[in-house]
């Protein structure tokens, strides 16, 4: 269910790494928990954030959640489609609902993230 090649944070972001770049979104589990997404607030390309910092927010009708940076990095691009179609986060959280593309500053931080198996187990534990 969670793409085998992705990495995950315990705040339920995923990161698809390609060399020194990565694409980031939130997981199906997180999207499901939030319910119908109505708005995603994203940063501007060029902004930089360190790991764990809030890079944006995601809103359902009655909840707001912060989006956390999985690793240190600079924003290269944002998913402009989310502005008018935030529901992509619900319908395709791991693909069309991606949020930001980042330049990874410190590759060693990738080792601190979970792989899909560990994340799956992490989610199971959360459900209990």
């Amino acid at each position, binding site marked *: 269910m969670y793409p085998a090649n992705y990495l995950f944070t315990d705040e339920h972001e995923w990161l698809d790494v390609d060399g020194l770049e990565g694409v980031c979104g939130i997981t199906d589990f997180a999207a499901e928990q939030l319910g*119908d997404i*109505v*708005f995603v607030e994203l940063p501007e390309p060029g902004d930089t954030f360190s790991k764990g910092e809030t890079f944006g927010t995601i*809103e359902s*009708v*009655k909840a707001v959640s912060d989006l956390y940076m999985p690793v240190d990095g600079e924003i290269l691009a944002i998913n402009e489609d989310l502005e008018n179609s*935030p*529901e992509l986060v619900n319908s395709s959280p791991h693909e069309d609902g991606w949020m930001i593309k980042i330049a990874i500053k410190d590759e060693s931080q990738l080792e601190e993230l979970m792989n899909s198996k560990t994340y799956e187990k992490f989610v199971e534990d959360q459900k209990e």
Partner: protein
Amino acid sequence: MIKGMRGLSFKEDLIFEKSREGAKGYSLPKLDVPKADPAKTIDKKFLREGKIGLPEVSEVDVIRHFTKISLWNYAVDYGLYPLGSCTMKYNPKINEITSSLPGFADAHPYQPYSISQGALELMYNLEKALMEITGFSRVSLHPAAGAHGELVGMMLIRRYLEDQGNPRKKVLIPDSAHGTNPASAAICGYEAVELKSNSEGMLSLSDLEAALDKDVAALMLTNPNTLGVFEKNIKKICEMVHKVGGQVYMDGANMNALMGIMKPGKSGVDVLHLNLHKTFSTPHGGGGPGSGPVAVAKHLAPYIPKPVIEKNDKGEFYLDYNPEKSIGRVRSFNSNFAILVRAYTYILSCGSDGLKESTEHAVANANYIRKKLSKYYDLPYETSTLHEIIFSDKIQEKFGVTTKDIAKRLLDLGYHPPTIYFPLIVHGALMIEPTESESKQELDGFIEAMIQIAQEAEKEPEKCTEAPHNTVVGRLDEVTAARTPILKWEPEKE
């Protein structure tokens, strides 16, 4: 008896859709001075051209439109309105009469004091009455609502601490608090730090101890808290906060549980706000106007917002526009005065005996509902409660019926639902505050409805999950409303 919705439910267009060119609903006296041509004195580029876009309708159209749509509202005058922490008590009709007396309704806030003595005296007397009820040294009547009162309270604390040499950084707020608490603290430049409630639904003294340090400016505490539980350690809590040099702010939203029973000012609290639109019977008006007076201990009294009301040697009332240490203004003019008139009327009507009895009846009514419904609904906290009770949907959730469904089904059965999903620390909370305004008969009807829903949840859950069936509109699509907001009316494009 359960009083399900019946009767007429009108279809009605928007007032803009009823607009017809040339229709008029007003008449003005004939202009008795020469008509001035604005272009003579005002540059033409600043003058309006063309239509504003307001409706053009007759008086009959206006009356019918707003009368019809008013019938789409539930109201206290229809029946029980058990919103927890909102204190939807009956709004006595005399309040509406007194607040519209011409001396009050037509008085301009800047008219000379010589012709304002009655209004000023009323404010002065109300301040004194609220001081007596709360046990504090001074009251400011300025705040326009509860959240405004909270903000003023936190501003007073900050200014006082500044004068002590250090405004400090943090404000401690229990996780059961209203959202307005952290929001008000933030505007005052404070960082909000959340404290977890213990298993009794109270503030944990050990957690408080651990959180207290020299950076703590204040603790914001609701008492009784939003679980309806009285913080029995309040004196100790205040002592602990004072010991590190902090102040204690009490959210008085639930003052209806305490009138004539205890005075917050005597429990060590430094500042308290009241909601006249809750405890003192002024109407909610579909979301306001309210009034949120702030009561303070002696050391905070010099800081209250200006102007402050005073009485001179000759017994004349006036407003002091420049008290030296005041935090300044927090609004224009002096108060939501017409709301003050209503609250003062209520206090006079009830008297010391009536206020206390109101609290007693409110607390008894809440405990009666608790007793009758605890067999059917989960009670997340066993602790005794005062004026409100919190149930959860834990039992019904097993059948796929959630708090939202219970609330919507109640609408079908003719009752306004309780506050739902608050406080946040209770999953699927149903927060019920019946107030003193309900007779046993009325309470029994509500209880019967709640029991019916509990039974339906088990046997016919779709009756709940598809509710409401009898209201003028069904469940509304809030997702689309938020994704593509339509916030004003526009004619349909052809």
